[in-house]
């Protein structure tokens, strides 16, 4: 486990009123090792993603990405450094087609403003079509995204993040809103796309089957702090996790 540390947080602390959303959070995320974050609602999982992407400013503590301090930087600056984000509720450009959503992302990545080039004619088009194929959405490339089912909207949301060619991808519940029969299909597609893009991912997940199959490491959140961390096999067998997170009697 000598993989390079991509992202590192030290002593993150934040409270919303009486709720402790982060309490001395120290986390290291290693390159190439996909980390699943599990834990009960209100444990601070999404807050952790929000702090890492600059959306929420911590009261104390620091975040370093690839050795650079990014604490309190804006989402825009952090994105430019190589941290992309996918959302629990897909954040798409509702009046654009699936392909256009990706072309806008690719133009943003390459700083291609091109005031007299049609969006459909930018050189990134083939690359984005390939990305749509990777997430199994090539057949809906020309459809408006607000007409698509939730599963495809989630995949396009993640594809937008991948279009930025990030080093690290943070995903908030990639399979929520997806029918349980389709969850593994969605994750298979995602794993393939992530592997090809060579992106390290961190994902918040409630489905332990998904965690077991797709995560390299698991971190258990409770009361704003990381309580346990290990391989899926170690964590999912742990009596505390079975009792508090999975919710079964030991």
């Amino acid at each position, binding site marked *: 486990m000598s993989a390079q540390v991509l992202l590192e947080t030290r002593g993150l602390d934040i409270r919303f009123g009486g709720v402790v959303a982060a309490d001395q959070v120290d986390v290291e995320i290693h390159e190439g090792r996909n980390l699943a974050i599990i834990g009960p609602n209100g444990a601070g999982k999404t807050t952790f993603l929000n702090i890492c992407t600059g959306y929420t400013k911590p009261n104390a503590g620091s975040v370093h990405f690839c050795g650079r301090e990014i604490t309190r930087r804006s989402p825009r600056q952090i994105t430019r450094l190589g941290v992309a984000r996918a959302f629990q509720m897909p954040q798409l450009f509702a*009046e654009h087609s699936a392909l256009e959503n990706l072309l806008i992302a690719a133009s943003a990545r390459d700083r291609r*403003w091109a*005031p007299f080039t049609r969006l459909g004619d930018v050189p990134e088009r083939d690359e984005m079509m390939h990305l749509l194929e990777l997430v199994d959405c090539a057949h809906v490339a020309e459809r408006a995204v607000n007409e698509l089912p939730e599963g495809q909207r989630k995949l396009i949301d993640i594809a937008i993040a991948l279009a930025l060619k990030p080093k690290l991808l943070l995903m908030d519940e990639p399979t929520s809103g997806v029918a349980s029969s389709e969850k593994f299909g969605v994750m298979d597609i995602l794993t393939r796309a992530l592997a090809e893009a060579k992106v390290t991912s961190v994902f918040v997940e409630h489905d332990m089957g998904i965690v077991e199959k797709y995560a390299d490491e698991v971190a258990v959140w409770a009361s704003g702090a990381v309580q346990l961390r290990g391989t899926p096999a170690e964590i999912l067998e742990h009596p505390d996790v079975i009792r508090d997170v999975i919710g079964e009697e030991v």
Partner: protein
Amino acid sequence: MSLRLAVPLILLALVALLPTIAPWSQVVLTIALAKGLAVLGIVVLLHAGQVSFGHALFFAVSAYIAAFLGKAFAGGELITMILLGTLASLAVGLLVGLFVVRYRHIFFGMLNLAVSMIFFSILEKFYHVTGGSDGMQVARPSVLGVPMERAGFETLLFYGALVLCIAVAWGVHRYLESPIGHMLKTIKTNETRLEYLGVSARRTLLVGYLVSAGLCGLGGVLMAVTQGIVTPEYAWWIRSGELVFIAILGGSGSVAGAFVGALVYEVVRTYAAAFAADIWQMVLGFFLLGIILYASSGLVGLYGKLMDRLEGKHKTPAGGAKQSMEPAQ
């Protein structure tokens, strides 16, 4: 050639030829084109989902620059007026834009209104400089150094404006279809995601704001030299409202709609005033109500639906709703 394309070209040819058949229409049409340019500025901002109720500011800035240039240089030069007037509007646009792009929707609209009314008051009160509510004469400028007679100047202005409008409409159309133009549209649909792509929503809107200020500036100069007089009324909030009115009338979001709307509005305004002097504004009011309630995509949208019907296509609800003003969604 398809009917859909032929009709606009015939209309364009009609507009170009009308002054040779009916000379009275020339000034009206030139004013319509000048306003059309300013309306196009409003249309650009509508793509970002923002409505400015103060864009007459940029219209007035350039118009007064033209008047001052005419006063300072014994008539002045048309090309200099256009260039310096538009530049001045861009400069003011940058100044105001840096401030207002931090706000959205009603705040954006009202802040623009406030700034334009400050300028209106300055024009009214500094009468020893601006002539107060009497305004300033705009002397007829030379064109490329050649002094012009009135008739020749008006003809040249009309055809010059027509060519300018076609070129500008093409340019704005390309801008709106480009990556940065599409990013402007995402300010309307999902600004958060735009920021998470590493793009500044404020800067993207500022670019659109500058384009819109420049367009209003261009329109303002043309209006000033066509009318031969500028008054504080150029910057008045009613003038700003008129620009928004025309944008919705023509088809909010449509480049062609800006000019179609301006032409229809100006012709109706000029001749309705002659036939129904007391109620023409009420007529326009009902017309706007009708457009918003029954044809939210404006005159250009109505034309599209008519063509769909003629070509036997069934209208798709998704296509029709795309640029509508309907509050749903």
